[in-house]
Structure formats: C-alpha cells, structure tokens
C-alpha cells in the first residue's frame, strides 16, 4: 500500500467571513492522495477547483476542516515549516507561468534550490541538468519577457522539477499552450508519474488533458460531484467517461 501524501478532511473554504456577503467556495470536501497518484480536478468555471488545490497545497488555509501533509496537519505547522515543506516537496505550475520577471530563466529555475540552501556549485549543476531535460538550456540567460509562451511554461516546469518534488500541483498548466506543447507537457507528467513516482494534482478544463490522469474529481458548486477512477480502462475509454461527466451538465441545460 502506498503512503498517504496528502489528506483533506471535510475542507470548507468561505471567503469574506464576517462581511455582509460571505461566499462558500468549497464545502465539506475530502480527498486522500497517495504517493504516485495522478489526480485531475475538473468542473465548470467558478466551481471551486483552484480554491480546492490552493487549500490542499498550503497556498490557502481552509476555514473549516483539516489538511494533512505527510501525516502532519498544515494548521499546526509554523510559517517557516510550511515554507520549507513547499520548496522541498511541492512543485507548482500555473497557467500564467508565474515566472519572476526580474530574474533570468536560470535564476527563476534556481529559486527553489536557493531556498533550500543548496551550495552554489550544486545549484548551477542541477539547473543545467533540468534545463537540458526540458529543452530550455539555450534560454538560461534570457528574461521571461524575451521567451515565447511554450518556452516560459517549460521554464516554469523546470523550476517545479528542479528540487525533485514529491507532488506537482498544476493549475491549468496547458491553458496558454498550443495543442502540441500541451501534449508534450502531459507526456512529461505521465513519465514523471510512472517512472519517477511523482504525484500530480492538476486542474484542467480539457477532457483530453484530463485523460492522462488516473483519477478524476468533478467539482460543482464547491462539492465533489463525481469521482472517476481510470483503473484498467484505456486512455480512450477513460476520455469518453470524462466527456460524459462533463456533458451531463450541458445536457441538463437542454432538458430544463
């Protein structure tokens, strides 16, 4: 049995607590993620997908409920411990690339290593290695604004992978990429997941992209409305199941 890496117990997130109009973005959601899992989160716009992964990955703090990472509850961790946990265990990839524009691509990739007090020579070595792997080694002296969208996303992935994280958290990682770059990215995720045992938690709108995962959570109005396991299904069969789940909502609109 694989080790539990991330556990969410009855997580609720309410924005604007104490104001006239509090908004419940997430209500009573639970999830267990094991080492080597590849979980995809789908749902309509505003359903709470990003809130869900932000609360699970220590970016945000739930209003109610508990999140355990490696068996430890996030709320009981101090700020330093949470920070340390992030740069040692998590790799974040987002739709907007989120590269730091005043740093070169090299420096951007190096940031998580710098945070973990890695020696200078090792930083240089590891950045070169991961940059080569993601084909961004010729861009290392450039600034993010001098690179194309695909190049920036690859650089952001290199940054996420440079510390060999146990869990990759990706929010719409293909949102700004063309189909070729999107599938290359997902092939890479699949390889990391299958060969290196990296766990992946990813939000996407694209059923085709979601079909690379092993488990799908469909979130609607802040609840997990449906869960699909890939199991022994082929990617094509799994894709059709995902499309079905997504189209139910649209079909309801016609009936109503």
């Amino acid at each position: 049995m694989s080790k539990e890496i991330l556990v969410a117990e009855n997580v609720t997130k309410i924005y604007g607590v104490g104001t006239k109009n509090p908004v419940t973005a997430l209500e009573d959601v639970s999830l267990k993620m094991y080492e080597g899992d590849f979980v995809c989160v789908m749902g309509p716009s505003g359903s709470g997908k990003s809130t869900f992964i932000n609360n699970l990955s220590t970016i945000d703090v739930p209003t109610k409920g508990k999140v355990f990472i490696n068996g430890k509850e996030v709320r009981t961790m101090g700020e330093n411990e949470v920070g340390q946990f992030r740069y040692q265990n998590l790799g974040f990839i987002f739709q907007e690339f989120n590269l730091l524009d005043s740093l070169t691509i090299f420096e951007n990739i190096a940031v998580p290593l710098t945070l973990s007090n890695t020696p200078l020579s090792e930083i240089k070595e590891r950045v070169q290695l991961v940059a080569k792997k993601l084909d961004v080694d010729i861009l290392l002296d450039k600034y993010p604004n001098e690179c194309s969208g695909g190049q920036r996303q690859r650089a952001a992935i290199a940054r996420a992978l440079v510390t060999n994280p146990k869990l990759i958290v990706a929010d719409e990682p293909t949102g700004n990429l063309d189909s070729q770059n999107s599938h290359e990215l997902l092939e890479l995720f699949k390889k990391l997941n299958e060969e290196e045992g990296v766990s992946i938690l990813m939000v996407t709108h694209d059923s085709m992209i979601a079909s690379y995962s092993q488990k799908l959570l469909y979130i609607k109005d802040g609840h997990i409305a449906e869960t699909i396991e890939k199991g022994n299904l082929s990617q094509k069969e799994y894709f059709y199941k995902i499309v079905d789940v997504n189209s139910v909502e649209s079909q309801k609109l016609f009936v109503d």
Partner: protein
Amino acid sequence: MGNFKFSMRMLKKEYKKSLVYTLTLALVTAVTFLFFNIIDNPHLMDAPQQTSQWFYTQMPFSTMLSFLIIVFCAFMIVFANNFYVSRKTDEIAIMTMSGSTFINVTLYLIYQNILMTFIAFIIGVILGSGISMCVNQFIYSYIHYQGAFFYIPMNAIFDTIICILAILFGQLVYTSGFVYRKDISYLLSQEKTNISQDERIFKFPSWIYIVIYLFGVVSLVMSYNSVSAIFPCFIGSMGIGCMIKYNFPKLFHIMKSKKWLADKLKLISLSNLYYSLRRAYILVGLYAVSSSVMIAIMIMQKDNPRELITAFIGFIVVTILILASIIYKYVMEATTRKLFYYNLYKMGYTYRQLKAIIKQEVTYFYSLLFGLPMVIIILSLIQAYLHQDITIHFMIMILAVQIISDIVACVFTYIAYKKNVLKVLEEGVRYE
C-alpha cells in the same frame, strides 16, 4: 456629458492613484508659489540697476534661481503626469475598445486632470502661502528688514495661475499624443508590466559612464573655485545617472551568478533593485545633479545672506520634490509586483523573508541614491572648507538635510511598498 460623468466616477473609483498624483501636484504648486513669492516680493529685492538698454538690467541671483526652480517644478509636473497617464492604460484601452474616439478619451483624461489640478492648486496655494510667510520672515531677519507677516504679493498668485495653466496645456498636448500613438494591445499590457527596454540610439560602452563620473570627481580634487565647482558637480552627477542605468545592472548580474545565487534574499532583492534602478535612473541622476549643483551654488553665495537663504530653501524643496517623486514612482511600480511576491510566497518564501527582501531592496536603492552623489558633495564641501572658509556648522547642516531626507524617504517607501505587495498575504494566508 456622459463622458464627463464617467470620467469623474472613474476618478473616484481609482482614488488611490489620483490621490498621490494630486498631492504631488499640490506640493509642486506650493513650491512654484513660494518661488514666485520670492521673485515678486519687492521687499526681497535690491533695486535693479537700470541702464538704458534692457539687457544690461542686473537680475538678482535669487530671482534667476527661483526661475530655474519653477522650471524644474514644471518638469516635475510633466513627469508626474507622464507617469500617471502611463498607469491608466487599462482604462484608456477599455474605452477605445468600447468605441470611444480619440477626442473622447483625451477629454476623459483632461476632465480628470482639470479637477485634480484645481484641487491641487487650492491646496498648493494655501500650503505655499503658509510656507512663503515663514520663509519671508526668515529672509527678512537675514537682511534686517521688518516686514508684515501676512504679506503675500498678489502677483505670486497670478503668476502661479499662469504657470499652472501653461502646464495644463502641456498636459493636454502630452495626453492627446499618448492616446493617439498607442494601440490597444500595447495599452493593455503596460499596467501589469515592469519591463524596461534599452532605448538608446547610441550605445556607448558602459565604462564611458564611469570615466565621466570619475572625471567630475577628479576635476573637483584637482582645481577648485566656487564658480567652476558647479561644472564638475554637474558632469560627475550626470555620470551617476548613466552608471545607475547601464553599469550597476551588469555588476549585479555578475555578482548574482558568482555569489548571490545561493542567497535567498539577495537573489530576489538585487534582481528587483536592478529593475527599480533602471526605471528611476532619470530621477536618481536628477537627484545627484540637483543636490550637488545646489550645494555648489550655496557655497558660491555664502557671503550673500539673501541669495544663500534662497539657495538653501531651493536646495531643500528640490530635494523634497525629487524624493517625493521617487517615492511616488517606486510605490506605483510596486503595484505591478503583487503577483511577483505572491508567487515567491507560493514557492516557499515566508512572510518574514518577503519583508526582508523588500527592506533590502529599498535600503540598497536609497544607499546608492545617497552614496554616489555623496562622494561629490563631500569633496566639494571639503574643498570649500579648505579654500573658502565655509564653517563646519554649514557642512553639518547640508549633510543633515541630505541624510535625514534620505532616511525619511527610505522609510516611507518601505512602508508603502510593503503595504502594497504584501497586503494580500496579511489579509488572507497567514500561518502565524
């Protein structure tokens, strides 16, 4: 009429941006008023030595200096307006996309400008009157004249109005030009970006700027007299502006790859400093030029109390104006860095580390702003002490103005910068 209402509504909504701009305008108006008061106040003038030909009329030095400071104030308003408009590009782009014509967009900005200038004028004249009354008394005491405390020359108000109207016209020309030249995609991308491009037509090798700076320093050391000291101060300070833009970024880049890449705070703070310096190099250069040249002028006028006082007041207000502009620009630029700091937080930087990064960046910035011209200033003060008998008291006073104003500006910038970029973390995600 709809355009006018919309423009006023947006001004109210974006009041934070407008408030800082209006206060800058008010401060500049107050300074303009103060120096028109010095020019127009008959009690502060010597009787001009008239000759038959107008060009032989001797103009008092304080009048000339006041005039230069007023020109400088006009420049500061144009600069503030330029920056203010460049931070409103989203609004302009959305209006253009919604079908507003060039005239409508220009009018939209002009309505806002007129209202802000009007408010700034009222505040500026009230503030300027108060300052002028105190300054007049101060100068009277030096020239042994007994003048009424509440006396303000009416011409100062008229001259300020004419000056502000001329500046409003300049703003109209600049604003319409800006709206006319920029396309929608450019406008939409500008408010969120903090990238600056090298737009030099002639790209000199960067060592030239060090040579220019050193030339100023060496000239001050080699030969000295009070009038000719202005030239090396000016040249050396010009070198500072260019070094800030073209030499320091390269130096930081080298230092980062050799050493600071493994320093979690310096890696970020110096990368940000690189951008801040590039964006503010004109102001930094201007600060160096104005402070060193104004000090040289004060030394030159040390035996003439009235001119010395005018120069000293000029020195203080120019220093305050430039520092206010630097704070304004720095804080406005900081608004584009919210996501930057949020991303650092996501990567594992703690709130305390982010605060330390901001503190480091701002401290380094002000250390350079203060330190580089200080070499020239201290040299000219020492030379003046050796050759012109200026007092230690005078030297301390000059240095105190520089140091105190710099520290106050540094603290203000730090607080405003931190509040702007870390607010989201203070309100939302905290683990302590």
